[in-house]
């Protein structure tokens, strides 16, 4: 038997881990609290719940934060659908073996990846917006869809490349066209490789959707800013908004890891 020193045992115990975690979180909260105290900040947490919901004589009503959250989710879901479509097309172009297709795909990818998303948003809203008559919401969806589409195309490409070449050969040798081989044989198998990075990308998209607050699309972050300009409760509201994002992204991660497990079991 290997001898483990008492110190090592202490370091490895779960009790120590939880204790350390609480210590770290506790100190952060304490630092924030005392910091706020020393600058004479007036905490008004009791005013927060009404931004989630109100129960009055008129009955139950969702608050502004919840309306903003729904908008954020709508925006993210639409942009994600667009991003998947763009990502798939770009990945297929890149893998097509056509010189022009490949050049277009690589050009798109490098362009989008190498400019800040804020500048991309300005391009869509202030440049393409007036030309094509895009409203803020459409411009936001296009910007997020294009930006994340570029990233997702790389996920598709890697997922497709991870399927062994023998699968292509077997598909071809039973007479399938390239399209059929993709649809029935290769893409279904690459889902397994794409699910984990795709989850990361969804979470990334929900977070980066906050950027559209700079063109005043009424989503979660914009709502937060608006409430603060009315009430000056910047500490409470930003903590709350951060927590809402955290809940959404954690729920997404947990949901997908559940799907992933189910999928691998079926395989």
């Amino acid at each position, binding site marked *: 038997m290997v001898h483990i020193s008492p110190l090592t045992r202490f370091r490895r115990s779960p009790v120590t881990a939880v204790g350390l975690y609480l210590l770290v979180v506790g100190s952060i909260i304490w630092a924030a609290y005392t910091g706020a105290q020393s600058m004479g900040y007036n905490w008004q947490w009791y005013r927060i719940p009404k931004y989630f919901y109100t129960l009055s004589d008129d009955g139950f009503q969702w608050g502004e934060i919840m309306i903003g959250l729904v908008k954020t989710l709508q925006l993210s879901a639409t942009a994600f659908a667009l991003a998947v479509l763009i990502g798939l097309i770009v990945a297929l172009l890149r893998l097509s073996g056509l010189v022009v297709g490949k050049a277009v795909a690589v050009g798109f990818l490098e362009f989008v990846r190498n400019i800040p998303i804020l500048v991309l948003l300005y391009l869509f809203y202030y440049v393409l917006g007036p030309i094509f008559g895009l409203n803020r919401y459409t411009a936001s969806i296009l910007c997020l869809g294009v930006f994340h589409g570029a990233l997702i195309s790389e996920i598709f490409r890697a997922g497709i490349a991870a399927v*062994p070449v*023998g*699968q292509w*050969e*077997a598909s*071809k*040798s*039973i*007479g*399938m*066209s390239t399209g*059929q081989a993709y649809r*029935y*044989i290769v893409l*279904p*198998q690459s889902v397994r490789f794409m699910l984990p990075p795709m989850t990361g990308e969804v979470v990334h998209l929900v977070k980066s959707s906050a950027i559209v607050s700079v063109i005043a699309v009424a989503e979660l972050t914009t709502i937060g800013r608006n409430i603060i300009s009315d009430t000056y409760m910047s500490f409470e509201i930003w903590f709350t908004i951060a927590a809402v994002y955290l809940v959404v992204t954690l729920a997404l991660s947990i949901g997908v890891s559940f799907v992933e497990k189910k999928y691998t079991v079926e*395989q």
Partner: protein
Amino acid sequence: MQNDEIIISATNVDKFFGTFQALTKVNLTVSKGERMVICGPSGSGKSTLIRCLNGLEFHDAGEIIVDGIEVHVGSKELKTLRQEVGMVFQQFNLFPHLTILENLSIGPIRVRGVSKAEAEAQARKYLERVHIPEQADKYPNQLSGGQQQRVAIARSLCMETRIMLFDEPTSALDPEMINEVLDVMVELADSGMTMIVVTHEMGFARKVADTMVFMEEGRIVEVAPPEKFFTAPDSERCKMFLSQILEH
């Protein structure tokens, strides 16, 4: 089984991978119903040759005509050709995300437009023929290597192919599973299928081959009926190769 109608002809075929010449001036004719076994040291171009016959690779010079269809890059008839020519791979290449039944029926359903019910009935028939009807609803990774390879043979049969190409079908198998696959191949040979088999299984070759082909360094060195091939081959290299693999 063999008659004189020529079903495959390759004339002066060259194939390059970059600067490496994999095939040099290869000439080959196969008659309908003929069972041909190709052997030779590794890297001699055996696999490349049969992969050129169904357009998994494309030759760079010369001419290949299979069942009246000329094989070349971008040919519109490749799909038709591949429905005529089945291929069994060393690594089986079954579709891991589909059940055995789906592996067999997806080709007929998607490529030949057969109804699902008909395709599945046919799939069960061929599973019967390769002696594993009870595995229909399993996934490939639940089967042994020998069973997987028999499924792969059945998958090709389901396309109602007229020619079957085998690329070292038993090389990736554990020794105790080789015979179950060879038995199925012998039965197939008896049924009159045109077969080209790349293999080092000389017992199988003696039993079924009409023609033996020996390749070395991308060239066909010897073509002979098995009686002559195993006893009195013309080329020295072929003699040496045979003595090496038959000694054990």
